[in-house]
């Protein structure tokens, strides 16, 4: 009897689960899958130097690295020097690199354009750091966390999606350099060993009016 009761309860719960939305938030669109093309590549985005740049403008001949980031997230801050070192290094090796801040500065002034400019200068960024002023580029990519990297090959197909490495807090304790290894494999024409990775991070603070 208990078994039947438990089964019926489980069935009702399963039915309710099937009817529940898989993801609650509008911005929880699925992320690009491996092999997918870049999206909204023509969208003009305001760079820290004042120019309007699109993802297409920054595409490299050997690939393109798009990193969704921000100024305020403590995990971005923990990784930011490594992100800038990677961006500076690989942008000189045929990879187009663009960092995109999709956060709504209305929710945290630290994510404002002026702070982006300061941060780019302080960190010595030699690649564009642009503002996604409607958060639509981040939504189109299905980006949800900062920092979050999307690496595309020369044909514009996604070959790596995920985080920077396996230890945000302590660079000396990193054992797996996910993004660097993916970049090296792409440049060498090798298979990327780990194509999808994850780490804890901050939610992207999407603009509500753009949803």
């Amino acid at each position: 009897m208990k078994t039947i009761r438990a089964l019926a309860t489980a069935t009702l719960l399963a039915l309710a689960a099937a009817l529940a939305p898989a993801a609650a938030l509008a911005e929880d669109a699925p992320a690009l899958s491996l092999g997918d093309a870049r999206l909204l590549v023509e969208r003009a985005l305001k760079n820290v130097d004042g120019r309007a740049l699109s993802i297409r403008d920054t595409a490299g001949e050997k690939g393109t690295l798009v990193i969704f980031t921000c100024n305020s997230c403590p995990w971005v801050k923990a990784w930011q020097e490594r992100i800038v070192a990677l961006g500076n290094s690989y942008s000189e090796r045929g990879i187009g690199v663009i960092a995109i801040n999709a956060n709504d500065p209305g929710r945290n002034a630290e994510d404002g354009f002026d702070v982006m400019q300061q941060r780019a200068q302080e960190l010595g960024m030699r690649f564009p750091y642009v503002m996604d002023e409607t958060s639509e580029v981040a939504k189109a990519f299905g980006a949800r966390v900062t920092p979050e990297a999307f690496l595309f090959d020369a044909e514009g197909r996604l070959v790596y999606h995920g985080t920077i490495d396996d230890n945000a807090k302590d660079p000396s304790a990193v054992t797996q350099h996910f993004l660097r290894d993916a970049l090296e494999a792409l440049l060498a024409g090798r298979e990327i060993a780990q194509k999808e990775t994850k780490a804890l991070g901050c939610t992207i603070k999407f603009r509500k009016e753009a949803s």
Partner: protein
Amino acid sequence: MVRLSFWSVAGAAALAVASAAQGAGPSGQAQPVELVPARAADLLREVAGSGGRVVLVNVWATWCAPCLEELPDLLRLEAALRGAGFRLLLVSGDFPSEREAAGRFLARLGFGGRSFIKDGPDMEFIEGLEPRWSGALPASFLYDGSGRVLEFWEGKLAYEALEGRVRRWLDAGRTGEEENKR
């Protein structure tokens, strides 16, 4: 002019629920916070052993402002619905170096007793809890009493929305139990 800090507001909210919150002793004084390192598999065992019919696992961190804003509501919800079979498991996603700070934050909210801090690699933790989770915080996972995921979401929810989701699953389970008695 009296300025209310976040701490005083959070503290007042916490006081309202502290006596009913998990870990409160007979005198009403909260027990010391114990943050137990836990991997995803450990948490799933905790869910199954919690005795709850609907269990919410919330991953938060001291550096995550929306997480800190949501915590008093989560504690209030557990106090309100514990008798109906709801359980709350809080998991700090802080770096190990922030463990004490995480414990202090919970204590300020009136929380006492056993709680958790993420252990092991992020990837294993995220995939072990829910493969659809991006890793963004806060993240909440609703389980039934056997440890099956009912629903998950990223980002902060207001109290009413949290309560609505939890009550829906509690009611779904209760309806199932009543059906079985007939």
